[in-house]
């Protein structure tokens, strides 16, 4: 029930200033009253049961605060970040989202974002130990196993309905990569938009972003979502003291970042067709991989496209069937200005293409909840090449293809008295690297949905990828075809306590052991980078978290993670592994409900670097102000990241001369969205 009224166009010619001001004030008053008048609000005392149903439909309700999803019976420690969180805290990328999560950290080297999970933040790794799913589709590519969480993540964060971060090994269901956990991104439906939405952003460092989305739900229940985004950032002129001899250490105009992406989703009856495309180009200012400093040619592009057809249906009363068929492509091109006289431009390239299918049966029997499935993936293209542009010289032309098959089953058995036993097993067969069998066992004692104790055991694996196995670059990196899968064995104990719908606390303790850890090292014999299975790593830690929601709309989420990870044979603590992480997210409405503030504090303790020094501990503060209704359909937010301009650095990987990569100081973003 929207009231519309027309304003007469004021005569602007020769109008006295006072008159204009009066019009302004009158307009403001009119707007304010309009806002106040809409919609009809019977007072709380009125007997609602006397109202006709048509009027009930027009009442704006105050919603009681409750957590969006129950995690008590999940056989893991799970964190869920919702679309509302993304807006409230001004998250720009998936990296921003996971950075706010208990026990996780993100490292940025001005090329990619790297995920640290529970004390394991291996440098030179493209997040291969985390499985990244978008609506059930596996995003990790079959060349580097990349879980893209930065600007190269193919889905605009505005399209995310929620992100489930599931800690612990997930290979018993998902197979490879689910070593440290699974990030499950669930996108919005057409009905969430119900119209067209245009969104524009302006941010520091010459950044702008535009998005246009259309969503609709048809009468027959079918839904459509189409969205396209474009992002451009000029970046900064960055100073690297290590390269003082060249251009006074300033990398000029070499921090730009741009992407375009597209996402579409169509659901009809039990079928959902999802498709995505992204293409990102990042200039690299760090002169990594032995390149020339301040060379304007250093550019890295990553792209991905996918199509996933999913079916979900019922088979009889107690069984559901889910099946999908997917096709994915990945491409990467890097232009590296290699040092030497003269400078040679080197083109590094990879192309991945694959298709696959999965089918699973979900059964809800009296005392059993069963999931059983099979998965097949055919990586028909896993090509890596490398050549000098001029004079042309082909340095690497490695063409591969491979297959993997997996079969799994899981049963959740109700033992009575709130006791659940979750048992799962998966067998994977890889055409290149052999097979793996991974079990998972969870004993969950759920006491009246108020307190849950979870005792969890599981193993997971990650097969070495073709990059780790076969990539070579003369003078920089060599292959190691003898790599074996790395394997994690994990024990975890979780306590969740939720005495009220709007308050919960979580505590967990874990012990993770990685065997045959695949690590990139510099071989002292020839000074070349190489991936090796380097022994055994043990990571142990405890985490505590608390969340509280208030009916006023205020919310608080805070957590602490203490962790220590060591290489077992040497006893040496791992690099880029903070011992302490602490986070706080607080949000509350101000000025009635006109504005919402989102305050975020993130503390990371010092981290060891490759050179044996330390990246100092730091506390970052981000602040967002959000107005969800400045006018009908219009939403405005303003964010300041690193509010106090804290100077901090992340440890650099072995491809860098820099031991520390300095990060952004204070920056801001203004975002306006309009739905019509």
């Amino acid at each position: 029930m929207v009231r519309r009224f027309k304003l007469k166009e004021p005569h602007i010619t020769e109008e006295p200033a006072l008159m204009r001001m009066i019009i302004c004030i009158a307009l403001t008053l009119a707007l304010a009253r309009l806002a106040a008048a809409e919609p009809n609000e019977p007072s709380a005392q009125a007997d609602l049961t006397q109202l006709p149903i048509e009027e009930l439909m027009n009442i704006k309700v105050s919603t009681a605060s409750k957590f969006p999803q129950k995690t008590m019976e999940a056989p893991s420690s799970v964190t869920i970040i919702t679309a509302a969180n993304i807006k409230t805290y001004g998250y720009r990328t998936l990296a921003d989202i996971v950075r706010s999560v208990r026990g996780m950290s993100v490292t940025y080297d001005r090329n990619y974002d790297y995920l640290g999970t529970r004390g394991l933040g291996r440098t030179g790794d493209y997040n291969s130990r985390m499985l990244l799913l978008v609506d059930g589709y596996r995003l990790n590519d079959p060349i580097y196993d990349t879980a893209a969480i930065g600007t190269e993540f193919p889905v605009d964060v505005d399209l995310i309905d929620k992100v489930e971060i599931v800690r612990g090994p997930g290979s018993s269901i998902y197979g490879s990569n689910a070593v440290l956990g699974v990030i499950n991104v669930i996108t919005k439906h057409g009905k969430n938009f119900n119209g067209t939405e245009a969104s524009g952003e302006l941010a520091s460092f010459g950044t702008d972003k535009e998005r246009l989305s259309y969503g609709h739900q048809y009468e027959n229940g079918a839904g459509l979502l189409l969205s396209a985004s474009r992002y451009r950032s000029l970046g900064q002129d960055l100073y690297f003291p290590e390269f003082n001899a060249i251009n006074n250490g300033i990398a000029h105009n070499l921090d730009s970042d741009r992407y375009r992406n597209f996402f579409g989703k169509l659901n009809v009856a039990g079928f959902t067709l999802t498709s995505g495309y992204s293409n990102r180009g990042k200039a690299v200012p760090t002169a990594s991989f032995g390149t020339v400093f301040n060379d304007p040619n250093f550019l890295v592009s990553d792209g991905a496209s996918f199509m996933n057809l999913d079916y979900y249906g019922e088979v009889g009363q107690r069984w559901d069937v889910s099946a999908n068929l997917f096709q994915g492509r990945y491409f990467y091109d890097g232009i590296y200005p290699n040092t030497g006289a003269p400078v040679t431009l080197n083109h590094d390239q990879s192309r991945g293409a694959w298709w696959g299918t999965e089918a699973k049966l979900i059964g809800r029997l009296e005392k059993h909840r069963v999931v059983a499935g099979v998965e097949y993936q055919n990586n028909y293209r896993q090509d890596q090449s490398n050549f000098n542009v001029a004079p042309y010289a082909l340095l690497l032309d490695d063409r591969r293809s491979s297959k993997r098959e997996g079969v799994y089953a899981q049963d959740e058995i109700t033992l009575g008295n709130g006791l659940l036993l979750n048992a799962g097993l998966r067998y994977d067969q890889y055409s290149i690297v052999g097979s793996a069998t991974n079990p998972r066992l969870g004993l969950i004692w759920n006491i009246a949905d108020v307190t849950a104790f979870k005792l969890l055991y599981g193993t997971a694996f990650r097969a070495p990828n073709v990059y780790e196995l076969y990539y070579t670059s003369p003078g920089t990196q060599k292959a190691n075809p003898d790599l074996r899968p790395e394997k994690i064995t994990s024990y975890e104990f979780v306590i969740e306590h939720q005495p009220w719908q709007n308050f919960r606390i979580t505590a967990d303790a874990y012990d993770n052991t990685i065997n045959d850890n695949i690590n990139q090292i510099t071989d002292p014999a020839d000074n070349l980078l190489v991936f090796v299975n380097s022994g055994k790593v043990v990571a142990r830690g405890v985490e505590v978290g608390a969340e509280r929601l208030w009916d006023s709309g205020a919310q608080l989420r805070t957590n602490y993670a203490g962790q220590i990870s060591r290489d077992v044979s040497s006893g040496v603590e791992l690099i880029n592994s903070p011992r302490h992480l602490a986070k706080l997210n607080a949000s509350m409405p101000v000025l009635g409900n006109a504005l919402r503030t989102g305050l975020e504090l993130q503390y990371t303790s010092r981290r060891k670097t490759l050179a044996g020094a330390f990246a100092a501990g730091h506390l970052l503060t981000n602040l967002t102000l959000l107005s969800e209704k400045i006018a009908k359909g219009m939403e405005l937010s303003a964010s300041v990241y690193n509010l106090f301009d804290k100077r901090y650095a992340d440890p650099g990987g072995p491809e860098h001369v820099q031991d520390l990569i300095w990060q952004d100081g204070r920056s801001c973003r203004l975002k306006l969205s309009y739905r019509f």
Partner: protein
Amino acid sequence: MNKFGKTILILLCVIFTAGRSISIHAAPPTEYEVKTAFINSITKYVEWPSAAAYAASTMRLCVIGHNSFGKALDTLRNKKVSGLVWEIVPVGSETNLKECRVLFIAVSESGNIRQILDGIEGSTVLTIGDTEGYAEQGVMVNFYLEDNMVRIEINIDAARRAGLNISSQLLKLARIVNQHGGVQ
């Protein structure tokens, strides 16, 4: 007056009026107060088969799972709808669900929804919920929120199977969901 002065004045004006417009708002009713009123109204549009035999001559509303209504359901106490007095029954292990006229299935039961619906198969219980996906799974009336206003979706097939007739007046106000139309 200079430009700066004007800007300040307009800003003050905006803040003042915005503040006023907020302060004159009465506290809006809570989600579950409105849902209670909806449940009351919806029953007026539902025809139960006359043959249906109910143990009690009341409009028995059973609530299964974690009760989110709080005190909101108290507003139905001693009220009549279609000539029957409301009777609110929290479901315990003893409750025979088939004797309820209306069964509200809370979000906490989303894992057991199949068992609950199977358990009342063949009866004429009007099932209501407020959880995404319930309608697709066979709950007859399901609430959802749109822009903080309560909306309903209706699974007509489920109602028909139970022999309940839902008036077209109500259907017009609802989003119609097919049994297999839902995508999980």
